[in-house]
Structures are given as structure tokens and as C-alpha cells.
């Protein structure tokens, strides 16, 4: 008890170095555990972005690319697929439901997704959550648009506002605007904390209508433009979509369907199983994770070495103190214990502050990360790994404390009661 109070007072006496040492350990622990948290949180959040979809079908190309542009709204498709192909699989007896996606346009940096009621009915995330409307209704007319919650919040759109869609994917205003065919906001979606919030949803017909008078990816020439009022939903035939999500009636059907898509004769298609491709994505990111973990480990080591340096250099000034302690009857072992306690205090304090900092930071950064990356990192209790990290930091701190402690031990044996100045 005496030693605890001595260690505490001694650290408090060297306030600045103690605080700096504790701070550097805290920051290194924050980094170590923060990386762990973000890693797990991101993984869970990614995995939760899409549920119950067995296959994602698109034009043949990269599996990752297909996953990214359909689920995460990152990157774009190289090719579209024919609507007939989609219809074939939609009506396939082994298929429970499908959700078609027609992609490629944007509004102020947000993606525009052409889809059908199937999206609102069948899309699932976080296991079994459904896309709900916060207000308004599902787009049904050609020029209806529903907004993801982030889109509505960031652009401050309300029901009834007009939205002009940009051709292609650009941030801000694009070069080519579909300004002759404005859309009307009819619905705003409930927040999902997935990339769903960061898109605008129109009908497949709306997507087709915007491009009705276009040819070869170029806007209509003067006089060839078809005004919006002339277009009726019934007259539009959908020629192509970009991709579709699919749920099979059974597990076995999934694999059978995947094979059928991949060997589809009419056009080159590709089907991926989202979970499998997500796994591949994680393996790719895994290297970065490992690198990050190694870096944070080194940061922890540097933090602990900083403590070693500060305790060790203080020893020279503390030789007198040690002699006084010896004179009042403290054995050399007590002196060892005193110094080990000091490093124990610092590393434990650092670990605790570090963990608190992790939670403070996750609390602060959660909405920011969600807004910018569509990742909802849950604030979760410490994982077993994190506990082990904390424990390892404290144990390493105590062990490191033995270095100056043994030095002090030898000093005090050699010095006895002489005051080396």
C-alpha cells in the first residue's frame, strides 16, 4: 500500500513526463484496438449490406466489380444485359424472386438506380430488414423518384421537388444533363445505414425514357429530342438492364442456377454468390489489415519504449531518493517493486485511457464514417482479441518496468547510503 502511494506520488510529481508517457501508450492502444474494432465493424457492416440474395447476375466481367457496382454502388459496369435474359431467369421455375438494377446515371454524385417494386418488396439487409418508406410512396410513374435517406438529408429535398439526372456518373453537375426530363420526388426511404441510403430510385421505364431519344451514348440531335410529356409508360419497352439480384427456391438451386447463368447461350453472363465474393474482397483487403495491425503493434512497442526511456532517464535523478528509501528501511526489492509499480500504473492507465478513447472516437466517428462510406460500424463491447491486446500491453509494461527497476536495484546495492550527486 505504501509503495502504491509512493509510486502514485512519484508519477504525479513528474506530471508532464508521466502524462506524455501515459498519453503515448494510450494512443498506441487506441490505434491497436481501434484497428481491430474498425476491421470487425467494417466486416460485419459489409456482410450486412446485403442479405437473402443468393446470386447477383450481370454481364461477364470481374466478380468483384459486379459486387461493387451492384451492392456498394462503387465503380460501374462495362456492359449491360438484355432484358430478355433477365425475363428468362425471372420466370425460371427455380427462382423465388429477382430485383433488376439499371445503373449508370447519377444526381450530384449520388447514383441513380432504375428498378421495380421488387426492390422494395424483396431487398433485404442486416439479415431480414426490408427497405421501408419514411414518407411518400414507391415510384410508379416514369418520372417518379424515391430518395435514399442520405440523399434527402444532404440535398435537403422534400416530396414534390424536381430532380434533374445527370448522364453518367459524376460528382456535382455533369456535362450532360437530362434536363429536359425532370423527375419528381414521390418518396423518401427510411434509413438503412447501408449504401441503399446513398442512391436515388426510379423505375426501369424512367431510366429507359431518359435515354429514349439518345443514340450510341450521345444526346439527341436538335429536333430529334422527344419531350417528356409525349412519353407514356405503356409505350416504353425496356431493352436492357445492368444487373439483377436473385433468390433461388433452395440452396441446391443456387448452384444449379449459377451454372446456368454462367453457361447462358444468348449472351455472356456471370452470376456470383455475394458471400463468396465478399470473402474474396476481404482476402484482398486482408493484406492491408495485416499491414495495419503490424504498424499498430509497432506503435505500441514505441509507446512502451517511450515509457522505458522516461523511467530510465529519471533514475539518475532519483538515486538520492533511493538512498533515502534505503535509509528508512526499504529493501532493494521494495525499490524494484516501486519502479515496476510505476510502469504498471503508466501502462495500465494508458490501456484504460486508450480503450476509453476508442469508444469516444467510435462514438464521434460513427456518423461520419456512415455518411462518407455507408459503413455502419457498431459500437461493440471489447472482443476477446482486444482484451488480450490490453492485457499484453499491461504485462509488457510491467516487464519493461523491470529494466529500470533492476538498474535501480543494482544502484542501490552499490550506493548503499552514499549520496551520489
Amino acid at each position, binding site marked *: 500500500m*505504501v509503495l502504491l502511494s*509512493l509510486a502514485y*506520488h*512519484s508519477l*504525479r*510529481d*513528474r506530471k508532464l513526463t508521466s502524462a506524455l508517457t501515459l498519453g503515448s501508450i494510450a494512443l498506441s492502444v487506441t490505434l491497436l484496438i481501434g484497428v481491430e474494432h474498425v476491421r470487425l465493424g467494417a466486416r460485419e457492416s459489409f456482410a450486412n449490406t446485403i442479405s437473402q440474395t443468393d446470386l447477383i447476375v450481370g454481364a461477364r466481367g470481374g466478380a468483384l466489380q459486379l459486387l461493387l457496382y451492384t451492392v456498394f454502388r462503387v465503380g460501374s459496369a462495362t456492359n449491360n444485359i438484355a432484358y430478355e435474359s433477365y425475363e428468362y431467369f425471372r420466370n425460371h421455375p427455380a427462382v423465388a424472386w429477382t430485383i433488376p438494377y439499371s445503373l449508370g446515371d447519377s444526381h450530384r454524385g449520388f447514383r441513380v438506380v432504375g428498378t421495380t417494386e421488387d426492390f422494395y418488396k424483396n431487398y433485404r439487409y442486416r439479415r431480414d430488414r426490408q427497405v421501408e418508406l419514411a414518407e411518400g410512396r414507391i415510384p410508379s410513374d416514369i418520372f417518379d423518384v424515391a430518395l435514399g435517406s442520405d440523399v434527402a438529408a444532404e440535398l435537403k429535398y422534400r416530396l414534390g421537388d424536381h430532380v434533374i439526372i445527370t448522364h453518367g456518373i459524376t460528382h456535382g453537375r455533369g456535362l450532360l444533363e437530362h434536363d429536359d426530363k425532370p423527375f419528381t420526388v414521390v418518396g423518401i426511404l427510411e434509413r438503412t445505414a447501408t449504401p441503399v441510403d446513398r442512391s436515388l430510385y426510379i423505375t426501369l421505364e424512367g431510366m429507359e425514357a431518359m435515354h429514349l431519344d439518345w443514340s450510341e451514348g450521345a444526346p439527341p440531335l436538335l429536333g430529334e429530342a422527344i419531350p417528356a410529356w409525349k412519353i407514356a409508360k405503356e409505350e416504353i419497352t425496356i431493352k436492357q438492364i445492368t444487373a439483377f439480384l436473385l433468390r433461388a427456391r433452395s440452396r441446391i438451386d443456387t448452384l444449379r442456377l449459377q451454372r446456368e447463368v454462367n453457361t447462358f447461350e444468348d449472351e455472356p453472363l456471370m452470376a456470383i454468390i455475394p458471400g463468396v465474393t465478399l470473402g474474396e474482397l476481404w482476402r484482398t483487403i486482408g493484406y492491408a489489415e495485416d499491414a495495419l495491425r503490424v504498424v499498430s503493434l509497432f506503435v505500441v512497442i514505441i509507446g512502451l519504449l517511450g515509457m522505458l526511456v522516461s523511467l530510465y532517464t529519471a533514475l539518475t535523478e532519483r538515486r*538520492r*531518493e533511493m*538512498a*533515502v*528509501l*534505503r*535509509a*528508512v*528501511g*526499504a*529493501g*532493494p*526489492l*521494495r525499490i524494484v517493486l516501486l519502479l515496476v509499480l510505476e510502469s504498471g500504473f503508466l501502462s495500465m492507465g494508458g490501456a484504460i485511457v486508450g480503450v476509453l478513447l476508442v469508444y469516444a472516437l467510435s462514438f464521434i466517428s460513427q456518423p461520419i464514417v456512415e455518411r462518407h462510406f455507408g459503413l455502419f460500424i457498431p459500437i461493440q463491447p471489447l472482443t476477446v482479441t482486444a482484451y488480450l491486446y490490453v492485457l499484453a500491453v499491461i504485462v509488457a509494461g510491467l516487464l519493461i518496468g523491470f529494466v529500470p527497476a533492476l538498474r535501480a536495484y543494482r544502484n542501490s546495492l552499490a550506493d*548503499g*547510503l*552514499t*549520496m551520489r550527486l
Partner: protein
Amino acid sequence: MAPAEPAELSPAVELDHVRFRYEGRPDILQIPSLVIARHERIFLYGPSGSGKTTLLGLLAGVLRATEGSVRVLGHNLTALSARQRDVFRGAHIGYIFQLFNLITYLNVEENILLPCRLHREPRTRLGGQSLQAAALAVATRLGIAPLLHQRVTNLSVGEQQRVAAARALVGTPEVILADEPTSSLDYDHRQRFLELLFECGEEAGSTLIFVSHDRTLMPLFHRAVSLQEINHVRAA
């Protein structure tokens, strides 16, 4: 701890054919015999480097005689383990350094009470008195009661030495070892400090072994011992 002879029978200090050298160096102390009775006030003098501090180290049990026996209060320190000697020192010996007696991160009261906090024996000798009361009593005696809750870094050297004396006296140890505690004080302070130390030591019934090279202080003591005379190692 090894059972000692009945306390009042054994002298405070009894050295018998003691030799001491630091590891790998020649002898610095060879003392055939030195006996100091209880309650004696001894002035131990000698030039610097004659081994005064080393002798105090032996008496305090921080150092261990290479040969011979060092008996303090009847306990043969040479036969005790390092840990037992630490406990013995904490229980029976008050020590005052020349300078820098205090632990800078503790306040005056905490410094005074350090031996009582580290060891049970001085605590039990306080009887029913609380630690705070004991600190206040000894501080009052030495005229530093108003300073009890000050930081020691704010004190003058004279005040610091009184705090050191208070720490050496608290719990009334049988032996007080003082290593030139007055050498950094001016004449007036020196006189006052010594008077207080003697008074308090007498009240406590302590044996005082006072090391100095300042022979003007010699007449104040019961007996003077010249280390050069009793030490058979000749300084090179």
C-alpha cells in the same frame, strides 16, 4: 528475527574485528573493537574518505562486514539476511543525511511518517497514537509543525534538516545515525539543530552517533571517537 540478549544488557554498538571492503577493492575498514553504550552521544570524526559513511552503512545494515561481527542492540547484523537487516534498520535506526534527506514528491508529514508507513515496529511503538498525531508531536518538538502540509521543495535547508531529524526520531528508534547533518547549516542554525536533536534524542532514550569533520562540535558530545585511530587501514 534472531532473539537478542535482554535489551538493556547489550551495548548499542559492538564491533569485533570488523573488516570491510567493497567488492574487488582493498580494505577500507579494519576495526578491532568499538563499543558504544546505550544512550551515549558519540562524536565520530575523521577526514573525508576515511570511511565514516561506510561505517554508518555497516551500522545501519545496508552494508555487510566482510569479516568480524557488527552487533547493534545485541543483533549480529553480519549474520542476518539482507532483508532482515532492512527490517532491522526500519525498526530500530533513524538515519539523517548530510543533505537531500527528503523525498521531493511527498509533503513534510508524509516524509516524516515514511518509516512508520514502511515498517510495523515503529508504528507499534507509537502506542495508541495515530500516525498524524505522532508526526504532529515530533514536528511540534522540532518547531516545524506549521510546515507539515507543505511541499518539501518549499523548505529552507535548515527546515529540511529538521524534517529529516523528525523522520529519524518518529517512532523513537534506539539508534540515530547522523551523517554530517549540520555541514550545510550556518552557525546559528547548527547550534539550534543540535540542541533540538539532543533534547529529542534524550527524551526518546536514543543512542546518537554523529559523524562530522567539524571538530568545533566535539565538546557538545559525551565522547569523541576518531575513526583514524580505531581504523587500522591507513589511507593511501
